[in-house]
């Protein structure tokens, strides 16, 4: 079902461009020929620092037909971050589009990586062989873009396990005409919102990700394309519920919301706006191929933190989080008792790319320690209660404090730094930073701001800064980010707007 390209039609919901199955086959075949002429072979990795357009999916299929591995990259990453990832992944090629930052292209070329434009295909066509199940199919870098990259490796076997699990749990009918508003460089948007329906033969409509003008016209777009399914993150609904008219055509059958906590209030608001009861909080983790649990039948009342049953996964809540010893029934929490969420699924990643140490710290005997806190309720459903992972969830996009710290630490006048999560009414969380400087004058602060902006993708930039005399640490010298945040929010943050506005003209 998933190997022989019986895919659905593809369309760009905003531009109106569309490819039917025949055209998709041709587009893939020309890219197979192009990749082969450039020497791409089984096991090679190819960077894709673009997405959310028809060509992206043709590139993906073409690479898979050659047994190569696709590495989708957030197009907003800075040249420094892309270079860091390239240093780890050693891609044979990068495929870019006309929106790719020219500085990123220059960096890739300087690093010795061939760069081709996605529309540059030639006319030769080649069918290509089929990938083998245990070939690496996809690497998704989830953190470490500024230091030690952490790339989740999925094989065709693990991806297919995810898609078949979803088909078994949810069927394909609700996904007949699927809309993706999410970026295609992360698991939720790519593996589940796009590839599950499309590779199951359903039609896929993609838009540029998180564009406010698109979200403000969401209701009209759902009607125009007779959309039956869409996924989302809570931040999408902050805009849509307020600024878009609801859909009127009644085509929508199912809505998922994921990547960030969904409150019961927001859940019911989405139901009212969409006119659909089948709205669910889809629990997705990149390591498990994203959506790993939720409510197949989401008719019931919304509840804070309610996820539901495993989709092709066994869920356990244990009193331990570490992988130093095998998962044991003795460690299992009683129903209603909070503990650490563990997952066992055939869709589990192969491991972290060339980081066996990280894989061993997260996986033991097929069980994955999620870092989430939750419980199993009296009906056997997973309910999430919090996270122990060291991450900032900015509207569904994860920012890893260590990635931000790593950039600030490299600035010559920074003595110490601690990045932490701040509550944010729109995004759920925002990025805050406490910094200790050898020189505290305005020029140094402006230089630090410029340094960070050069090295960090925009969503990772701290929006509020505090300059401290020292950063409190535990007796073992470790950062306690919560304690630093608590110390900071008691005092005013730097007025960055004023500081940067006062920058002397060059």
């Amino acid at each position, binding site marked *: 079902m998933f190997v022989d390209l019986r895919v659905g039609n593809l369309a760009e919901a905003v531009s109106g461009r569309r490819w039917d199955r025949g055209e998709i086959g041709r587009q893939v075949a020309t890219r197979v020929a192009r990749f082969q002429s450039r020497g791409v072979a089984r096991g090679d990795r190819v960077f894709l620092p673009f997405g959310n357009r028809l060509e992206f999916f043709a590139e993906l299929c073409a690479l898979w037909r050659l047994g190569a591995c696709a590495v989708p990259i957030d197009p907003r990453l800075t040249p420094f971050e892309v270079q860091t990832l390239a240093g780890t992944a050693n891609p044979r090629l990068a495929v870019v589009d006309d929106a790719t930052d020219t500085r990123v292209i220059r960096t890739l070329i300087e690093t010795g990586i061939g760069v081709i434009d996605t529309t540059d295909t030639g006319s030769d066509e080649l069918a290509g062989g089929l990938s083998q199940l245990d070939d690496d199919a996809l690497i998704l870098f989830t953190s470490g873009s500024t230091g030690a990259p952490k790339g989740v490796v999925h094989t065709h076997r693990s991806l297919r396990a995810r898609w078949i699990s979803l088909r078994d749990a949810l069927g394909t009918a609700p996904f007949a005409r699927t809309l993706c508003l999410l970026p295609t460089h992360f698991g939720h948007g790519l593996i589940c919102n796009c590839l599950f329906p499309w590779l199951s033969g359903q039609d896929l409509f993609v838009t540029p990700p*998180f*564009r*406010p*003008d698109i*979200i*403000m*016209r969401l209701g009209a777009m759902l009607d125009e394309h007779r959309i039956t399914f869409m996924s989302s993150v809570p*931040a999408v609904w*902050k*805009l849509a519920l*307020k*600024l*878009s*008219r609801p859909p009127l055509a009644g085509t929508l059958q199912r809505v998922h919301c994921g990547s960030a906590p969904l409150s019961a209030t927001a859940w019911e608001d989405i139901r009212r706006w969409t006119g659909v009861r089948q709205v669910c909080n889809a629990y997705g983790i990149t390591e498990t191929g994203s959506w790993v649990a939720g409510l197949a039948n989401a008719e019931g009342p919304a509840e804070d933190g309610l996820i539901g049953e495993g989709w092709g996964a066994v869920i356990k809540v244990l009193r331990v989080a570490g992988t130093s010893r095998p998962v044991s029934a003795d460690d299992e929490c009683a129903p209603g008792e909070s503990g650490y969420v563990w997952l066992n699924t055939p869709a589990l990643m192969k491991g972290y790319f060339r980081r066996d140490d990280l894989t061993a710290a997260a996986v033991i005997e097929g069980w994955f320690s999620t870092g989430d806190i939750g419980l199993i309720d009296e009906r056997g459903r997973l309910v999430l209660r919090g996270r122990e992972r060291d991450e900032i969830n900015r*509207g569904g996009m994860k920012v890893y404090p260590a990635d931000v710290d790593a950039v600030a630490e490299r600035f010559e006048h920074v003595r110490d730094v601690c990045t932490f999560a701040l509550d944010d009414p*729109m*995004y759920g969380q925002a990025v805050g930073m406490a910094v200790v400087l050898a020189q505290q004058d305005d020029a140094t602060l402006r230089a630090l*701001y410029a340094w960070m*902006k050069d090295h960090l993708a925009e969503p990772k930039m701290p*929006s509020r800064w505090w300059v401290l005399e020292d950063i409190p640490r535990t007796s073992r010298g470790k950062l306690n980010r919560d304690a630093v945040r608590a110390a900071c929010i008691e005092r005013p943050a730097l007025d*960055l*707007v004023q*500081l*940067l*506005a006062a920058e002397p003209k060059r």
Partner: protein
Amino acid sequence: MNGAGPPQAANCDRQRWREDLHRFLRTLQKPGKSLAQLGDDEGLVASGLIDSLALVQIVVYLEDTYGIDFGMRGFDPDSLASTASILDLIAEFRS
């Protein structure tokens, strides 16, 4: 509510709304961008001055400050694109 007055009064109103709006935008704007250097017709989001989600906060500001009910009047995304278009929206509502 102000009726349609003489042009001078209308200009005065518009100037006041602009000052109030800019004061509010300064609380939302990203560091490193200059509101003062942004033309009234330039896009607030397109220029990078504010984040797309800040549009929701602008809507709440317009509802709270001027009583504009977007639920009643419908919503055109272009009306929040720039300082000028927001001022036009306020003027249209006030007249």
